[in-house]
């Protein structure tokens, strides 16, 4: 990289910001689960992959456009993860934090290998009518799909934020996250709140998977990368801070794109991971220390 071309750089930064906002959707649920259930959900990446496959097969068999499939994918993700929490994760909670963590690790292994078994190891991608279109703003060209995904992600994040701050479920959720025992004493059904949170995370993560798959190809083994990206985002944005997660996503997108711009595309994820480790070490509660919305 001898000379830095300003238009290319602006393109990279803007594209990265849009992409990061889009990816933030897959991270919002992870942050809720960590806040409410004190559970590091290592199967998160596989739920994201599952959402991508659901949209892929909905498009392949019934010709449903991935964007129209988003509500269906949300329902599928919700329905898939609700029993996982109820029958598998809730019973091991009494063995401590590590038991839950390692159980989700085992579930991630199971899911990933079932994906390989049933969906084959091939790399897949989602196509829409405007996948290859770009939108020109002056000299800057941005893929239309990034803009659409960004808008969808922002809308859903706002909806989740409303749900958490403005509804009675949100109140129970915040109470359970703050102090589960006191919450139970004042009559909140904490285990039901956890169940709802985990299933909500399932729905959100699978929708996030659809958006990611619209921009990048995916394989059954993409899960761990999605998980770590989502982690980097929530650590940047601050735990349980929903709009913070969205901003964190934008920040990560910009950082990753700059990394890819200066060091080559292979380093896109590497830059994010190194930043995650440094951030965890220096500021585990996030750099956006504003008002906590959770």
């Amino acid at each position: 990289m001898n000379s830095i071309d300003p238009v290319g750089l602006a393109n990279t930064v803007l594209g990265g910001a849009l992409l990061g906002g889009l990816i933030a959707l897959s991270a919002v649920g992870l942050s809720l689960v960590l806040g409410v259930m004190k559970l590091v959900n290592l199967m998160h990446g596989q739920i994201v992959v599952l959402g991508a496959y659901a949209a892929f097969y909905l498009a392949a068999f019934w010709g449903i456009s991935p964007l129209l499939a988003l509500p269906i994918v949300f329902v599928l993700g919700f329905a898939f993860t609700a029993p996982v929490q109820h029958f598998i994760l809730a019973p091991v909670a009494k063995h401590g934090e590590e038991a839950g963590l390692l159980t989700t690790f085992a579930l991630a292994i199971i899911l990933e290998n079932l994906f390989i078994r049933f969906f084959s190891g091939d790399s897949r991608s989602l196509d829409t009518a405007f996948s290859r279109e770009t939108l020109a703003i002056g000299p800057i060209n941005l893929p239309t799909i990034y803009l659409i995904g960004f808008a969808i992600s922002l809308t859903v994040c706002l909806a989740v934020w409303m749900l958490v701050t403005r509804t009675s479920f949100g109140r129970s959720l915040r109470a359970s996250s703050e102090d589960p025992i006191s919450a139970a004493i004042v009559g909140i059904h904490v285990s039901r709140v956890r169940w709802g949170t985990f299933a909500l995370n399932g729905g959100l993560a699978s929708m996030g998977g659809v958006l990611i798959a619209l921009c990048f190809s995916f394989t059954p083994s993409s899960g761990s990368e999605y998980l770590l990206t989502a982690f980097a985002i929530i650590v940047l944005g601050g735990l349980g801070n929903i709009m913070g997660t969205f901003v964190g996503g934008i920040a990560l997108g910009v950082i990753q794109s700059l990394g890819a711009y200066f060091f080559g595309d292979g380093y896109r994820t590497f830059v994010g991971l190194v930043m995650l480790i440094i951030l965890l070490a220096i500021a585990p509660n996030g750099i956006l220390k504003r008002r906590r919305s959770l």
Partner: protein
Amino acid sequence: MKNGISILLSRIATPTRVGPRDFIIVAVLAAIAFAVPYFAGTYQQEVGFRILQLGALAAAWNIAAGYTGLVSLGSAAFFGIGVYTMAIASNAGLPIALCVVLAAGVAGLFALIVSPALFRLRGLYFTVGTLALAEAMRIFVVNSPWFGGQAGIYLTARAPKAYDLYWIALLIAVFVVVCVLLLLRSRWSYRMQAVRDDEDVASQLGVRTYRTKLWAFGLSGALIAIVGSIQALNQGIVQPNGGFGMSWTIDIVSVAIIGGMGTKVGPWVGAVFIVLLGEFLIQFPEIHLAVVGVVLVLVIRFMPNGIWGTLTLALQKNRNFS
């Protein structure tokens, strides 16, 4: 960090006494295992190699995770360091034994370098940090110009025969066992278990927690790298997804948990179980790991102390009642 698993485990692990009897048992078992190539075929030697390899890896992981509470999902980073050190050093013409020592040294150095960042993280965050570290290492090796990229590096050293590999693996397994036993006889094990059960209290009692964790993490990583360096000899070619792949972490974690975290014998029981399960499912490679995952879920839920831990507890109970 005080929680269910460590409370349950400390019941078993704390009274662990290591006496001369343990060393004699190890010597007898090693002598029997040494004789295996004289009457068993190549297939049995390969299965034996795999058991010794996984057992040694899980026993090494157990030093950090089982006794010190540093549940790491970054074992693949250390394993990969071992694999690549062997490839690069042996291609440079160094003798194999020196390469193995070098692998351990590089891994220890790596632990030292990453510890300031990782040890600021407690409990679950430490686990996530190690997972990120291993992935970062893999991606770095894929993309950097020095390690042969995706294609990897071919070893110029002559590939060892099945029985040679088996004996090398046995030697290393015995080395790991002796390390663990000596560690359990020393004061370090008390410091480590104190850090695991409650880091803050341990620190108040005068345990240098950082140093204790670093020794445990470094030793664990160095032993994992030694096993990794042998895997490089076994394969003849090293590649990022093989050396730094998540599959090694998955194997290590499932072996240690199914056998029993924080017990001396657990990792070896787990290794026998996992390898035999793999041989049993050899016709169905695609569902093999999924089955391992299901077993893991069941073990965590119904016998959180693993096979060996559950057996020990049951025996202790019987002895108390009779």
